[in-house]
């Protein structure tokens, strides 16, 4: 109920419309009374009492009432649609903004499909509630109560007799609600499951094909499809039993009016006109009653949907801006970590354990280390995608938490380890961070990323739309588009997270040379597995299990015992002789690590 109130709170800006809509609704209810009443008058007075002069005016009265009724209806329906749609418009925009305010950690936990279903289906349910449910709820109550008293006043005995159809009707509606609706929801769930199977089938297409697992996929699909079919048929069977049943019970009211009301007329306790009018009023009583069942359900569902949507809206980002953030148009590029600890789950294992280093403006810092040692995690803390659990990350000597988030991100260009390109022309993809960039700037960035020539070779050049997730480009090509995208920002701090892993050494070389030129005086962080990529860094940090185990320059590190030198030997020298020894050491180390962790 609280959620419904909160949802209704969104109506506040549209109070005027709301009042208009409800006034029209009241007028509508009154006009609904008029036509049966006029009918009764025609039959009893004009026809039976043979006051034929009244016939034409009364018939015209019916038309007049019809016009008024229509007008009221228009106002009510249109205004409530506008209200509902306005609110949803506001809500969607709020959600969209909110989704972009949520931190990375939220997206680590959530499934895209689940978020999608909240922002689409749940919002749609809320819209229907606001546009149709709410007004009809009020109308149904006003209408049925109004009619009930009116009928009791006209002929209380007949009314009471007719009312015996209400308990079975209510019971059927309840049964419908408790039996069919959950089944219906289940069908929706199964359908969503089917969609999910399909979605993964398409996303994992290449893996499925390369493992020749099409049959397995078909089985998965068939199984889910059959479940859907079974539930669907079961639901339809119930539904097609109950729905005509409700119709029948409603019509039984007419039978009662005919039978009991007819005998009242025969006995002279009631007029024929009222008998006919009663039948029409009955429809006005039972119609809203039946609708009420639907409305109550819609309200419940809207409330459930609103709960989910508000839950999303209430998810507070833990990456918050302080109230008076420092503005930083252009950073100098000084980055410092001081004893940083970090875990992805608050209760989970620490991924970083006491990272400290200092990158001075213009320096190149390389991070090296085993798979899963925490390299990406370190660089993700610089643009404040996550906050450290302990310790501080500083830019230009100030804690990143004191800056406006937008300023940090505009000052830090990052090429993430996983390339994501939008379905858009290449030029737009490169200009993603600076849509106002000129074509010359875009091309310059592409040149530096060594992708310009390739793009020019494409039939549509920079206008080539790269498909979903950039299919149609080779691995290295995608990475280079992403590099160009970051370079165009011209950021004081640049992060390259393993972003040349799919690029050959020669091309990488060219990229580095271009970068050295473009990035003069700027700070860069480079993560790479190939030493060739990190050799010229001013500082090399070697990570192992969330700690920095070695640091120095290439020259100093190759003289030290340790991981770095071994990798160096592995990747450069004539490895066949060395690798035997290195292998043994690596093996021992792996066992050591495994053993330590297995405890």
């Amino acid at each position, binding site marked *: 109920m609280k959620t419904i109130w909160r949802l209704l709170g969104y109506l506040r800006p549209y109070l005027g419309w709301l009042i208009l809509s409800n006034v029209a609704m009241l007028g509508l209810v009154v006009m609904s009374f008029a036509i049966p009443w006029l009918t009764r008058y025609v039959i009893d007075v004009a026809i039976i009492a043979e006051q034929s002069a009244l016939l034409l005016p009364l018939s015209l009265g019916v038309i007049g009432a019809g016009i008024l009724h229509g007008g009221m209806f228009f106002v009510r*329906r249109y205004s409530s649609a506008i209200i509902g749609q306005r609110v949803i418009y506001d809500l969607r925009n709020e959600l*969209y903004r909110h989704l972009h305010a949520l931190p990375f950690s939220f997206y680590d936990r959530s499934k895209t499909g689940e978020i999608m279903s909240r922002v689409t289906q749940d919002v749609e349910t809320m819209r229907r509630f606001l546009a149709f449910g709410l007004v009809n709820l009020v109308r149904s109550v006003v209408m049925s109560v109004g009619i009930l008293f009116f009928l009791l006043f006209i002929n209380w005995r007949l009314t009471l007799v007719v009312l015996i159809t209400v308990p079975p009707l209510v019971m059927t509606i309840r049964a419908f609600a408790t039996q069919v609706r959950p089944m219906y929801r289940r069908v929706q769930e199964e359908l969503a499951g089917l969609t999910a199977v399909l979605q993964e089938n398409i996303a994992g297409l290449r893996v499925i094909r390369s493992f020749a697992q099409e049959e397995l996929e078909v089985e998965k699909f068939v199984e889910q499809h059959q479940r859907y079919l079974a539930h669907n048929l079961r639901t339809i069977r119930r539904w097609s039993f109950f729905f005509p049943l409700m119709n029948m019970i409603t019509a039984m009211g007419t039978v009662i009016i005919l039978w009991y009301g*007819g005998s009242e007329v025969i006995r002279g306790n009631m007029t024929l006109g009222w008998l006919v009018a009663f039948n029409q009023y009955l429809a006005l009583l039972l119609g809203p009653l039946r609708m009420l069942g639907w409305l109550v359900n819609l309200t419940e569902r809207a409330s459930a949907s609103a709960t989910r949507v508000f839950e999303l809206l209430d998810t507070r980002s833990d990456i918050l801006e302080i109230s008076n953030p420092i503005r930083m148009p252009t950073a100098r590029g000084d980055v410092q970590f001081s004893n940083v600890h970090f875990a992805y789950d608050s209760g989970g294992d620490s991924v970083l354990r006491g990272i400290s280093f200092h990158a001075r403006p213009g320096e190149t810092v390389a991070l090296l280390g085993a798979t899963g040692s925490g390299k990406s995690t370190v660089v993700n803390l610089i643009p404040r995608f996550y906050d450290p659990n302990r310790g501080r990350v500083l830019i230009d000597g100030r804690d990143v938490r004191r800056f406006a988030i937008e300023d940090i991100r505009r000052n830090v260009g990052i090429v993430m380890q996983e390339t994501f390109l939008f379905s858009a022309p290449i030029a737009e993809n490169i200009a993603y961070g600076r849509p106002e960039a000129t074509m010359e700037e875009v091309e310059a960035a592409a040149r530096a990323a060594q992708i310009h020539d390739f793009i020019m070779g494409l039939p549509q050049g920079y206008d080539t739309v790269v498909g979903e997730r950039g299919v149609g480009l080779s691995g290295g090509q995608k990475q280079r588009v992403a590099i160009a995208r970051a370079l165009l920002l011209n950021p004081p701090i640049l992060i390259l997270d393993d972003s040349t892993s799919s690029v050959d050494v020669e091309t990488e*070389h060219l990229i580095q040379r271009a970068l050295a030129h473009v990035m003069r005086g700027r700070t860069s962080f480079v993560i790479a597995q190939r030493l*060739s990529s990190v050799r010229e860094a001013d500082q090399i940090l070697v990570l192992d299990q969330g700690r920095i185990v070695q640091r120095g320059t290439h020259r100093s590190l190759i003289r030290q015992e340790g991981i770095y030198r071994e990798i160096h030997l592995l990747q450069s020298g004539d490895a066949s002789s060395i690798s035997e020894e290195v292998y043994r050491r690596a093996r021992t180390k792996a066992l050591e690590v495994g053993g330590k962790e297995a405890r």
Partner: protein
Amino acid sequence: MHHMHGGHDSERKPFNARMFMRLMRYLSPYRWWLVGSLSALVIAAAAAQAGPYLFGMAIDRFINPAESAQVLTMQERLSGLGFYAILFIASLVITWLAEYGETYCMSWAAQNGIFDLRQGLFRHLQRLGLKWYDSRPAGVIMSRVTNDVQTLDELLSAGLTTVLGDLVRLGVIVAVMLTMNARLALASFITVPPLMLMAFYFRPRILQAHREVRTRVAEINANLQESISGVRVTKSFAREEENFAAFDLRNRGNFDATVAAEFLMSIFQPGVMFIGALGTAVVLWFGGSMILRESIFGMQVGTLGPGTLAAFLVYVQRFNHPLQNLSNFYTQMQSAMAASEKIFAVMDTEPEVQDAPGAITLPAIRGAVEFREVDFAYDGEHLVLEQANLSVASGQTVALVGHTGAGKSTMINLLCRFYDPVAGQVLVDGHDLREVTTYSLRAQLGIVLQDTFLFSGSVRENIAYGRPEATEAEIVEAAENVNAHAFIERLPEGYDTPVGERGGNLSVGERQLISFARALLRDPGILILDEATSSVDAYTEILIQRALDVLLHDRTAFIIAHRLSTIRNADLIVVVKDGRIVQRGTHDELIASGGHYAELYGAQFDAESGPRG
């Protein structure tokens, strides 16, 4: 940004008898259900019209008998009334049961037919080649199987029977009215033309408006989908405001479209109700005049009982629904035609890669691979591979090296027969790949693709993907071979830890290791590693190499790597440049002969061991 795909192809198509018959063929296995449904439908439509007739007759004969009629006692009148009431009840019960039978039988037939259709479509999708998928966004393919099938479902489960039912209903109503009183009936039909005008004017427009709304909503959803998928990029570029503006535009578009549709509805609905009131007025005035034997426009209009008038008051309202449905049906049929055209177009697409008639099962692979003058182009025009010749003896380890975009992955794609060459042949153990079944080929390959993809599920499920029946020991062994066992054990739930959507809870290198283990577990005849360790550290890599030394003994392997240190020991190094194979030989041979490889290697060696010039 955020381009919309799909939904723009035409949503309506004229009726096409061939297509319709093809659709109907899906129902033919369930034809007896259809027959049952149709018979029930006729009964239901007729029985439902008995009520007002009985009501009217009871009034005229017993409740308010004409003075001219034979005089009945009160008791007779009451029991006569009771008899009619019981008939009324009987008609209601019949209607109920017949409607139940009608809906149920029809849905049974339609749901099963649609099930078969969707099943066939999905199966066909599993056969279509990657080229077909390359040129279509996932969303469009999804909507073939979901939305378009749904449209057909609506037509078959509801549309067809509704329209038949409505025709019967209209016929019965007209017939009953004409027999009760032909003149009054003709007078009441005056509401039919405006109703039809309303229905046939507004209904298609309303449907069109609703379709517009759906398109807008689909745009919003597509935008949301991409916004959420790319949210990390957006945040890292602080692009929130621009994206919001684009979203707001779509949101506003949806608002406008919905309000426009609601405007039509807000006119149409009360309009129809008004015609209802008009009908009531006409029946009251004309019928009343008949009862009172008044003349209308100087004409005597005949006689009538008030009961008939009461019955007419009900019937005149009953034109409304059937007429509306009929006007809907036309549009519904058009949408269904458009949907079936799209669905059947997919089902009629011959997979560009498929088993030739008489394709044989590839016997257990020994591992000889040959590329014979292979030309290939993704788009059929721009050659990506040209005159590729390559001969690999069974058991050899082959390394493919070359610049990015040179065509290395493409060669792998051809070897897996994801695509067929434009010219030339790819052979395994002397069999042209086009002469063996793709299943028997791929079932014997172990591939690590350059783009790592993990399914949402546990680590274990992912490793065992290619061999679901693998034992625990085998899974652990595969993980150990790629040195992933240690880190997997470290995960919160070990092998049962969910990897998250696309493996998002793991580091990129960890994901690669799992997809590597997945390929090894297959114990493949040919192992294909496309940048399988590009994000894996050098340490782990050497451990993997050691394991591979054993695993690759006597097994053909293709390895693509940019870190040349990893491939130095290959039996054969193939250098690809701009789609051509420019060199081949062992490491030592290639270094000795100079050329592209020596350059590549030199670049790396320079980079590794000493300051550049």
